[in-house]
């Protein structure tokens, strides 16, 4: 499904997923219950995965679902369960009226600045290139080849270090989470 074959279909779904992601994010931020919030975040990630696929980053979309939504958010929910934080508390953890309003302004200011800067410092005529997933599929290596080439050739060192990082994280997590008797 590329934008050059079914543009309307493409645009509709793009906006659909975008709106759902946005609404889910807002709902996520405003829930009192940690479990509800986590689940709304999962929803955001699913929508983002869909957007990735539509942007021809199918690998990333898959990994997003598998790793991010499937593993990381599950860990979050595990911890919530472990610490028995499931029920909405009597005392809400959301800050009072004034901080919320101020935070709203700050967020709005941040958004505004980013938009202004993006418009001002950007070459507005950037367009997406013609090469689409359809054509890439037929190349030797398929649509994975560009990613693999960068990952395993140019960024090999970073790749290896990332694996070490994960090892360290595992050891760290286990060490920190151990019960001290």
């Amino acid at each position: 499904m590329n934008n050059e074959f079914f543009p309307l279909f493409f645009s509709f779904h793009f906006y659909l997923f975008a709106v759902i992601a946005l609404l889910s994010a807002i709902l996520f931020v405003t829930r009192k219950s940690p479990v509800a919030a986590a689940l709304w975040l999962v929803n955001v990630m699913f929508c983002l995965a869909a957007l990735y696929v539509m942007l021809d980053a199918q690998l990333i979309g898959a990994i997003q679902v598998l790793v991010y939504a499937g593993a990381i958010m599950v860990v979050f929910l595990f911890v919530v369960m472990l610490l028995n934080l499931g029920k909405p508390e009597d005392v809400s953890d959301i800050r009072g009226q004034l901080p919320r309003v101020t935070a709203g302004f700050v967020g709005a200011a941040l958004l505004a600045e980013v938009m202004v800067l993006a418009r001002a410092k950007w070459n507005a005529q950037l367009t997406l290139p013609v090469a689409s997933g359809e054509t890439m599929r037929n190349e030797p290596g398929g649509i994975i080849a560009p990613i693999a080439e960068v990952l395993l050739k140019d960024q090999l060192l970073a790749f290896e270090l990332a694996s070490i990082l994960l090892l360290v994280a595992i050891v760290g997590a286990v060490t920190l989470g151990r019960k001290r008797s």
Partner: protein
Amino acid sequence: MLAESLALSAALFAIGVIGVLTRRNAIILFMCVELMLNAVNLSLVALSKVYGASGEVFVLFVITVAAAEAAVGLAIVISIFRHRQSVHLDDINLLKG
């Protein structure tokens, strides 16, 4: 699609910032940070269509780091909960002064 993706990314980021500023539960705070990372991922993926695959590779690394960070961070939260019986941010103030 590029402009809309970037706009959505900025909006999600701003929502994430608002969340960080408003919530006092450590775990939810963490999740807001994850939301911010996701927003950035979206912007990277959108731009990688223009600038090539290195954007997507960067996203891979971001996800990796996010995973590691989530693991260690949550282990720390559990440690703190064991000492203070609370993940409310106002109670974690040993650095006061």
